[in-house]
């Protein structure tokens, strides 16, 4: 027991709190509603939210670097639209997937280049990117296009049985691979360490000789690529292309990151966090669905309330950390002098 408590530190307490919340939410759902505690309900959480997990993980890199990417939801919608349009032209599934990945990567690279090269604010650039992606999908078509490509339909309906009757689909496998790769990249690669260092303090990272410009562009490119993968998974899930898909999903991704314990000041957070955050919101949605009489807007209110709780909690921890690490400057006013504030 002692070894367990000693392992809880400033660094992992937020992720542990998220995990605890996840268990409490799931437990209360299981206790309140019959049929909630079934393997398939649990696995459906992953099936329904696979795309969000992927996108939120990409967003996590950007946030840890100290930036923001508002274009993710529009890129997902754009990918769904482009796929549908290409299929209508008679393209094969491989070409569509390759084209999607290329579009996402190029899109992210463009945004990263503008932000890094011309010192533009990421908020403004990715906002323009959001308009651009939605605009292009509107130009392709304002109607919803159904996808009936046999490969995509097969991939979408293919069930992978994990335990007796419980099944997952291809999307969940893709999401799992992406998350594992992201965790490995963040922990064990030079790129991951550079991202954390830049998020902590860009000037010191530059003085340390880290490739700040390259990493910044790479981070946004990565977010674009993850959005593209998320877009493919989402297209598999919906089997349609529509320019109004997922309005406002970028905020869900940011919320998942915050609930998952990633500080928006940058430089801190675990890459498993976004997945836990997405699962939390997913469980809330499932509970509200099982409850039956509550209207859908209660989801928003509950998620917002959770956001508030986690932010207050994060703030408390950061405050305690500051107190314990800076004992010298007692007579200084308690304003932190951070460069990054958004």
């Amino acid at each position, binding site marked *: 027991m002692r070894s367990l408590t000693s392992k809880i530190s400033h660094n992992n307490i937020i992720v542990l709190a998220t995990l605890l919340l996840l268990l409490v939410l799931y437990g209360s759902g299981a206790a309140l509603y019959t049929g909630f505690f079934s393997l398939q309900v649990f696995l459906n959480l992953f099936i329904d939210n696979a795309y969000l997990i992927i996108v939120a993980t990409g967003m996590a890199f950007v946030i840890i670097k100290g930036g923001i990417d508002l274009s993710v939801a529009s890129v997902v919608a754009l990918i769904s639209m482009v796929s549908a349009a290409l299929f209508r032209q008679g393209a094969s599934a491989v070409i569509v997937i390759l084209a999607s990945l290329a579009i996402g990567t190029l899109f992210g690279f463009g945004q990263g280049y*503008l932000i890094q090269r011309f010192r533009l604010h990421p908020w*403004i650039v990715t906002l323009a990117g959001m308009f*651009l992606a939605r605009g292009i999908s509107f130009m392709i078509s304002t109607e919803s296009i159904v996808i009936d490509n046999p490969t995509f339909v097969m991939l979408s309906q293919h069930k992978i049985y994990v335990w007796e009757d419980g099944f997952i689909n291809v999307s969940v496998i893709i999401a799992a691979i992406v998350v594992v790769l992201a965790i490995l990249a963040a922990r064990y690669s030079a790129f991951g360490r550079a991202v954390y260092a830049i998020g902590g303090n860009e000037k010191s990272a530059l003085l340390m000789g880290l490739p700040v410009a390259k990493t910044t562009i790479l981070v946004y490119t990565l977010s674009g690529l993850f959005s593209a993968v998320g877009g493919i998974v989402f297209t598999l899930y919906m089997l349609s292309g529509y320019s109004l898909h997922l309005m406002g999903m970028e905020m869900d991704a940011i919320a998942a990151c915050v609930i998952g314990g990633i500080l928006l000041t940058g430089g801190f957070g675990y890459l498993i966090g976004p997945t836990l955050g997405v699962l939390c919101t997913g469980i809330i949605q499932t509970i509200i669905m099982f409850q039956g009489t509550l209207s859908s*807007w209660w989801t*928003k*209110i509950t998620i*917002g309330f959770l956001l508030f709780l986690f932010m207050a909690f994060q703030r408390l921890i950061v405050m305690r950390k500051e107190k314990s690490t800076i004992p010298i400057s007692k007579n200084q006013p308690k304003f932190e002098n951070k460069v990054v*504030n958004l």
Partner: protein
Amino acid sequence: MAILTALAHRLVKQKLIWPLLAIAALFLFNLIVIPEFYRMEWKDGHLYGNLIDILKNGSPLIIIAIGMTLVIAKEGIDISVGSVLAISGALAVMLLDSYPLWAVIGAGLTVGLLCGLWNGMLVALLGIQPMVATLILLTIGRGIAQLITGGQVLTTSDEAFQFIGKGHLLGLPFPIFIALGVFLLTYLFKTRTAFGLFLEAAGGNKTASAYAGIRPKVIFMTAYAITGVCAGIAGIIISSNVASADANNAGLWIELDAILAVVIGGTSMRGGRFYLGGTIAGTLFIQALTTSIYSLGVEPSSILLVKAIVVIIVCLIQSDVFRQSFILSKKKVAQR
């Protein structure tokens, strides 16, 4: 020639020049391509025309962008204005059935003020980053607005209430006067009281301003409270203009347009100096762009695309790095 270059250099340093140039370029383009854009009509004692439409439809955005300027000046941001707008509009239309008009307007403004104070409390007292703090209200706000309307689109037929958004005064649409009033009040508040100076000081450097004896927390709370009230006013105008309250779509994405207007207007996202006049010019540019696209007969679906490209161009022109690299390459050519 030297005087001219010096003048040009001074002009380029002026923040207001860029949005004004952009508007001028747009109007010049319209003059050549669609001359009928400038046609005005006098009908039943009211003035009609595209220019009036720009002012009228831009009014809610102007009001919100003014509030946003104050918040951005203090190195913050408020992404919850759209949701606050929806709450205020929904509350106003719901209360209209059983309460007099002044109480309804009061309630709309009060709920805006409360939301602003909530944001201010999270940012100033708890010290949460502005974007995250207002993200909470962005998420919850739409939920609360839907709770008020019960998920329906509420409608009203109250004539007096509809005057706020649809009425005319001196031949001009009434919302223009509200926007003008808000601008004048804020401008006076900035120039005639110490608040403007304090806000710029606190936005420029929080620690230094605290040493200088300014209380940044109070300043921040005030800035957020003003933004909340502005969103409340805009909510009432919008719901009155369409005589209904739609919790889902009222003011959707208006926060993004407002931030855009502020940035085009020359106020830096990193805080410090702020330019209310620039914000107005930025807002009018965005609205004029939208109206021009509609009157050009281009598909409305392409509006987002055009907006995105224009935003990137305007931001690039404003970026010092971009301008420098452009000037440098020119000089190199001249040397050769």
